[in-house]
């Protein structure tokens, strides 16, 4: 033992003359660090209620709850996170996975209340002193899921302009799995999809590599996934929560991936269609379009005998005759119909109700009738000279092309309209070597067409002329189209809050020398085939058939669906209608038994 060892510890006595260190005292508040993970804040305006925070929370401290004053819309579930601080562990994973960056944390960590319920609150809704504090944890400069979409490979514009080969190549396995990985399974898409397809479910099956499960999920709500996987209007992608800060999931292409990657021979086995129930009820379906096929499929799986009447030689309706083959190859449809025929659905082609067979006969002979006749009759542009030779309607033109008729378009085509039909007509015309100008009354952003279609048209050098109102079609001496005159338009705000209205500017006449004018401004239904007696009983509103919730029209046992019923008038809505009608028919006939 050294003397030093006894003395040195006394050096600590030097602290007597040192000022004491006080880290915290009760009178002075010590603010948390700038990055501190304290009580939550939520920008409820930016929040879309996707519930990713709830799913990420390891402690189930977050509940999504309805909030007064926040409406459920397509893009917003109307729910907001309620945080239970008896469970929260302040890990901030909820903040880091937030799809809108609306959820953050304040740097507040002391809060006293004698009411335990105060510690369950909805950030942003239940006002707290730290709501406006700038400090606290925010999502770091990273993303816990890939915000970028996997690019879809397409045939180059120069290579596709001369043919009708399908442009979109489809995802490979790696690409599909990478894309499927981006999904956070929030389910906003399910609510928005007209058919309420289990989108997160089938995306998960891609991640799991379980194509059979994926196909079953597709067919649960949609018997035409090959078609929807190609030409669906994909409203789901518009509300995708990942799309708020990044690119929306390519839901449509993922659906196509599943449908394309299950061998068609296996469909029957996977979907359990080998032994279907049978009953003695017989249902007639008028029109073999998407709604009719959908109704036929689900009715047949319920055991009904189904006969489909179709006026044309082939099934598919607008999807067969209206959509160009570069978007939807015909084999897809034929494959689908083959499946229905194998299931025992009877198709009577070239049999138009009202022409080959009277509606009354069908109505009396069958237990129930579903009518999915679609929009057959185009709206006229209703301007001078529309009767000229070379002034045609887009739906006739597209049908002829799909029937392999070669149209005579001449050197320059003017397409009137801005919907998908107009884009199809324009892009098909390009494939016949014509110059194409699309005349549209409003701005390009107002076009009802899918953005991909507009982009595709531009890549194929279709000239878009927005804010152009056609005023007359000029004929030559032989009554052939020589040109089209249009006025430039200015956009005027709608006082009622609708989309801005184009108003022609007097004196801005422009004449375009064209050889063909294709009208594509819209279509309406045609119900004369019902005959006067039934027509009078069929209630309609602005050209749309009025139906009950179960799709039954004002005529008992007559159900309807598709473009003539729903407002959105697209394939997926038609499929949803067909499914609903099948359920409606089943309920009706079961109740009558």
């Amino acid at each position: 033992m050294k003397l030093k060892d006894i003395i040195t510890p006394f050096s600590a006595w030097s602290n007597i003359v040192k000022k004491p260190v006080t880290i915290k005292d009760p009178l002075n508040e010590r603010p948390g660090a700038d990055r501190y993970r304290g009580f939550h804040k939520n920008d409820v305006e930016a929040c879309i209620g996707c519930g990713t925070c709830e799913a990420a929370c390891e402690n189930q401290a977050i509940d999504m709850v309805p909030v007064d004053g926040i409406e459920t819309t397509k893009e917003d579930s109307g729910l907001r996170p309620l945080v239970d601080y008896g469970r929260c562990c302040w890990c901030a994973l909820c903040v880091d996975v937030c799809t809108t960056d609306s959820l953050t944390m304040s740097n507040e960590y002391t809060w006293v209340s004698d009411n335990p319920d105060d510690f369950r609150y909805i950030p942003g809704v239940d006002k707290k002193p730290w709501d406006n504090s700038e400090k606290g944890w925010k999502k770091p400069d990273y993303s816990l899921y890939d915000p970028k979409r996997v690019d879809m490979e397409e045939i180059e514009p120069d290579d596709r302009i001369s043919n009708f080969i399908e442009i979109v190549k489809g995802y490979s396995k790696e690409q599909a799995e990478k894309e499927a990985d981006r999904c956070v399974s929030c389910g906003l898409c399910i609510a928005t999809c007209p058919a309420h397809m289990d989108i997160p479910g089938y995306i998960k099956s891609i991640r799991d590599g379980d194509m059979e499960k994926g196909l079953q999920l597709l067919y649960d709500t949609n018997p035409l996934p090959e078609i929807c996987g190609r030409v669906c209007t994909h409203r789901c992608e518009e509300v995708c929560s990942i799309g708020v800060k990044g690119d929306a999931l390519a839901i449509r292409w993922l659906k196509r991936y599943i449908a394309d990657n299950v061998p068609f021979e296996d469909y029957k086995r996977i979907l359990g269609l080998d032994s279907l129930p049978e009953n003695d009820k017989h249902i007639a379906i008028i029109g073999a379009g998407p709604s009719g096929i959908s109704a036929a499929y689900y009715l047949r799986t319920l055991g009904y005998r189904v006969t489909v009447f179709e006026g044309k030689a082939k099934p598919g309706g607008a999807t067969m005759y209206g959509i160009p083959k570069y978007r939807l190859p015909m084999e897809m449809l034929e494959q689908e119909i083959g499946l229905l025929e194998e299931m025992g659905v009877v198709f009577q082609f070239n049999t138009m109700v009202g022409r080959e067979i009277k509606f009354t006969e069908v109505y009396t002979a069958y237990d129930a009738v579903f009518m999915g006749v679609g929009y057959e009759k185009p709206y006229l542009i209703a301007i001078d000279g529309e009767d000229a030779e070379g002034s045609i309607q887009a739906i006739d033109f597209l049908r002829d092309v799909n029937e392999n008729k070669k149209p005579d378009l001449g050197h320059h085509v003017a397409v009137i309209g801005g919907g998908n039909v107009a884009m199809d007509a324009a892009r098909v015309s390009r494939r016949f070597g014509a110059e194409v100008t699309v005349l549209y009354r409003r701005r390009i952003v107002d076009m009802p067409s899918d953005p991909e279609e507009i982009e595709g048209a531009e890549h194929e050098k279709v000239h878009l002329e927005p804010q152009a109102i056609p005023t007359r079609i000029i004929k030559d001496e032989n009554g052939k189209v020589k040109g089209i005159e249009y006025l430039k338009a200015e956009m005027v705000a709608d006082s009622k809050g609708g989309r801005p209205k184009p108003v022609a500017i007097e004196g801005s006449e422009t004449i375009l020398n064209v050889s063909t004018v294709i009208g594509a401004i819209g279509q309406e239904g045609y119900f004369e085939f019902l005959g006067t007696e039934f027509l009078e009983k069929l209630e309609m509103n602005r050209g749309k058939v009025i139906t009950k919730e179960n799709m039954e029209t004002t005529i008992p046992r007559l159900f309807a669906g598709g473009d003539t019923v729903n407002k959105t008038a697209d394939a997926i809505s038609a499929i949803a209608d067909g499914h609903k009608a099948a359920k409606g028919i089943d309920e009706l006939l079961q109740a009558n038994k």
Partner: protein
Amino acid sequence: MNKNNHKFKIEPDRSSYPQPDENGNLQIDLSSGKFVKVWHGPNHPGVTGNMSLELTLSGDEVVEAKTHVGYLHRGFEKLFERRTWMQCFPTVVRMCVPEPDSNEYNLAASMEELSGIEVPEYAQWMRMLVLEMARIGNLLRLLPAHAGTMGLGLGVQWGVYLRDLILDRFEELTGARIYHMFIIPGGVRGKLPEGFKDRLLSNLKDIDDFLLRFKRLAIDNAVFKKRAIGTGVVPPEWVDKFGVVGPNARAAGYRRDVRLDTPYLLYDQLDFECYVDENAASDVYSRTWVRYMDLKYTVDMIRQILDKMPEDGEILARIPNAMHWKVPAGETYVRSESSRGEYGFYVASDGSEFPRRIQLRGPSFNHALSLLEKMLVNANIADVSAIMVSLATCPPEIER
């Protein structure tokens, strides 16, 4: 029996103590009235954490010791099987409160290894910084506690103050003081805040000063020396027998440091050495000295890290979607050097969104559960706490 190198050697009369039978086991007849059973813990100021020692005393000498755990069981390893991989990330930290970052690192490293993810360089430097800061934080608590268990509380006060400063730095950097949840699988959750380096360097200077003062106060203290030297010896031949790791093994003359043996992160880019007691004294004093040197070296290492790390860079690799990260099927054992020694995670994945098994192999499992039972035999009841603290046991990592 373990006071062999004590200077003033007294051979006591041990005839009244229990005698070993032919197998070497002590003959203890509790009904003889010669023995007292004492429960040391689970709530006892001298016990680290919620575990209990069942001591059989003969006079003031421990003749038999049994360790008991079970007071802290939260079933984490089972919970992990029901959580997604990413949800495990905020949970693993709870398996060691004073130094949670090794857990975070091990989980992240195992997921990255199985998924084949390369962590950005900047994030790797950040991870090292956080791990070393955590080591300092824990050592500032542990080192003075060696003296604290022998009645010298002043050092503990100094240490805890400095630890608080380190926790302030953690709060700035990671957003939390204790459960940092910073080393996220794939990278880290942030960059250095403005002015952080200077504040940390100034704290390190305070720690330098503390080391000096603590040496005078405790290490060179005649009383501490008298009690610590020769107490709680781990014979070097026990090191491999009981799986002793880290500072406890280094006190016994073994050079055991995962950072040097199998370098992970970017430790191979740092210039450092671990302190090994050449004399292999392996007693409480030796272990105190090893921890003292560890703290000194770690302070130096943080200075190196701050000096060498890049100014800026990516913090997160492109990881699979955190909401349903599927770690490819496989198993791995990842380890890192915690302030208590080798800290390992055995991780098995069946390729699903949930871990099949995450098992923690903490150093305390061997040190506190089996080694301690042997070490306490023949120890004085007053030294029990000192021996236990000198092993730096942490019961949460025994009971997961």
